[in-house]
């Protein structure tokens, strides 16, 4: 098998939070608690889950924005987990991060031309006409015009600002792009336009996407493989088509059943009660057991490992661990 472009091995990121005015009590927030996965070259790998499940923390830890507590991140065969500052900058050129709201990550006082040129001036030796040419090329690639380079970010619509965010990172010819909730807050028709653009850019620039989203419909459409996260862990992972057709983990089942689809009346029995656990105080055993309709006694004691159940499919649930009754 081809070596993956990105490998994440038992990655953990714990935060300390202090509560109380003087920070007397500290709590350990286990935002990311042992995640392993491989992303193949030029695939779109989906990361889904609800607020607080750790999907954004995973994206940011891969990029080195957060220092991992434990575990490693391997990019193109090289361990990038504990690189010195100087080296981190080089890796960031190859792995780019697109934030949820690119509008707020564009400097309002700068013209678009300057915004798009900045990464080139920092990361590459290109200057003058070469920079200008590259910037114009990228405007064209994302469906904007070189004439718009003299405008300020606020003169663009929400959808166009997302295009600008993409143009900015593409100037550096990244290999992998982490898209963090790339369509949240967009109207459906604008969302469709942006998704189309992602697909075009991917084939044109041979990109690998890590697609982080809570929108399952979008993930189903865009991703070849998907990992479902719950309470800082991956609970199920597999080919998107297989996983959506036959979800195995009880959480995946209720998550998919909860999607409000046009014309689909819900099966009321599959409604999930309760809310995700507090990451400072996870339940013992499987983190999903308090909300799980299949729970048994061992689920409350023993944490189920993520085990392969078929080719390319893994689930972390005692119903699928070897010794089930």
């Amino acid at each position, binding site marked *: 098998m081809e070596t993956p472009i990105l490998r994440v091995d038992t990655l953990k990121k714990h935060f300390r939070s202090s509560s109380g005015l003087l920070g007397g009590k500290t709590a350990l927030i286990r935002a990311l608690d042992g995640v392993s996965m491989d992303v193949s070259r030029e695939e779109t790998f989906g990361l889904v889950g*609800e607020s607080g499940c750790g999907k954004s923390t995973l994206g940011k830890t891969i990029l080195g924005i957060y220092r991992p507590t434990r575990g490693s991140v391997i990019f193109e065969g090289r361990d990038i987990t504990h690189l010195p500052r100087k080296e981190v900058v080089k890796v960031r050129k190859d792995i780019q991060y697109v934030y949820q709201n690119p509008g707020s990550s564009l400097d309002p006082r700068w013209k678009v031309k300057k915004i798009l040129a900045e990464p080139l001036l920092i990361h590459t030796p290109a200057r003058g006409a070469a920079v200008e040419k590259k910037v114009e090329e990228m405007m064209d690639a994302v469906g904007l015009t070189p004439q718009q380079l003299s405008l300020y970010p606020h003169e663009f619509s929400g959808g166009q600002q997302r295009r600008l965010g993409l143009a900015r990172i593409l100037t550096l010819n990244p290999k992998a792009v982490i898209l963090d909730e790339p369509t949240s807050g967009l109207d459906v028709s604008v969302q469709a336009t942006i998704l189309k653009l992602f697909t075009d850019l991917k084939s044109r620039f041979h990109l690998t996407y890590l697609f982080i989203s*809570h929108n399952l419909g*979008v993930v189903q459409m865009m991703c070849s493989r998907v990992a479902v996260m719950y309470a800082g862990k991956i609970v199920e992972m597999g080919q998107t088509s297989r996983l959506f057709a036959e979800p195995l983990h009880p959480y995946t089942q209720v998550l998919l059943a909860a999607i*409000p689809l046009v014309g689909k009346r*819900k099966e009321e029995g599959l409604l999930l009660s309760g809310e995700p656990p507090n990451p400072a105080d996870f339940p013992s055993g499987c983190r999903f057991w308090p909300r799980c309709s299949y729970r048994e006694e061992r689920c409350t004691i023993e944490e189920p490992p993520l085990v392969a159940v078929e080719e390319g499919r893994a689930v972390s649930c005692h119903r699928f661990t070897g010794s089930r009754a």
Partner: protein
Amino acid sequence: MDRSPDTLLLNIERLSVHFHTDRGLVRALDHADLRIHRGEVLGLIGESGSGKSTLARSVLRILPLSARIAEGDLSLSGEDLLAMKESDLNARVRGRGITLIPQDPFTSLNPVFTIGTQMEDIVKWKGSAGIGHGPPGEKVIEILERVQIPSPRDQVGKYPHQLSGGQRQRVLIAMALLPGPDLVIADEPTTALDVTVEAQILQLMKSLVLGKGISVLFITHDLGVASQICHRIVVMYAGQDMEEAPADVLFSQPRHPYTRELLESLPNPEGTIRDIPGEIPNLIQPPPGCRFHPRCARSTALCTQALPEKKAMAQGHWVRCLYPLES
């Protein structure tokens, strides 16, 4: 007051609302109609700038100062809301006859008062016709039980930040139902929530309003959510009402080109991405006639001349389009 079903509760006719801004006159609503019957959940769907929130705010007459109702009629149970005095609106309509479930459970509660205090204030100022007899504290407990807040007696002393987003949204629903309103305006009530919590809230809203004689104006940009809870749906685009139909008919047999394009732009498992060419128009200089015409494949010169009249397609189904799609 007539509480039987099929009675017209809210009637909006040819409502136009303009905003006066530094850049010019924003024509946010253009001759929009809306009718809600007693006990009915009416979905108002549309993308940003479609005018759905402006319409809802007009009903409560809580438009910003820069807005002016330029034309139209607005009545609740036959009573003219546009002619009503502010003092009457406050005494009988706002927060009493019509209540609001806001979009964002994280900012819509007062952070410095407990849940119990905020709810007892409603009992005090807006009444509690939605609940039985007893002291205010007991009424609050009872309504919290109805919205399925676990052990409500332990919750009333809590501050909003001590509750999760889903629980806060339940509290806001309880607050909206407490005065026993005729109409609840739900403005994107699940947009800020995760999908499993959203499913719980939709289920809860259904159980609390369906068959209880309460009407709901359900505003959403999410067609999937609308299809779960609404009886009828009105589709808006750039300040104009484009189509109205029973929910199942609208989704299976849309007749307005915009409605169909909107449905086709939803994510689908086949992975074919369809978008609507062009952008939402600027409402300072909106396209003349049908505002969708610049993006519409079926448009002709006639579409630019005037706002199309409503054309009946079937019982309870109309479109504002000169060239509706075949069924």
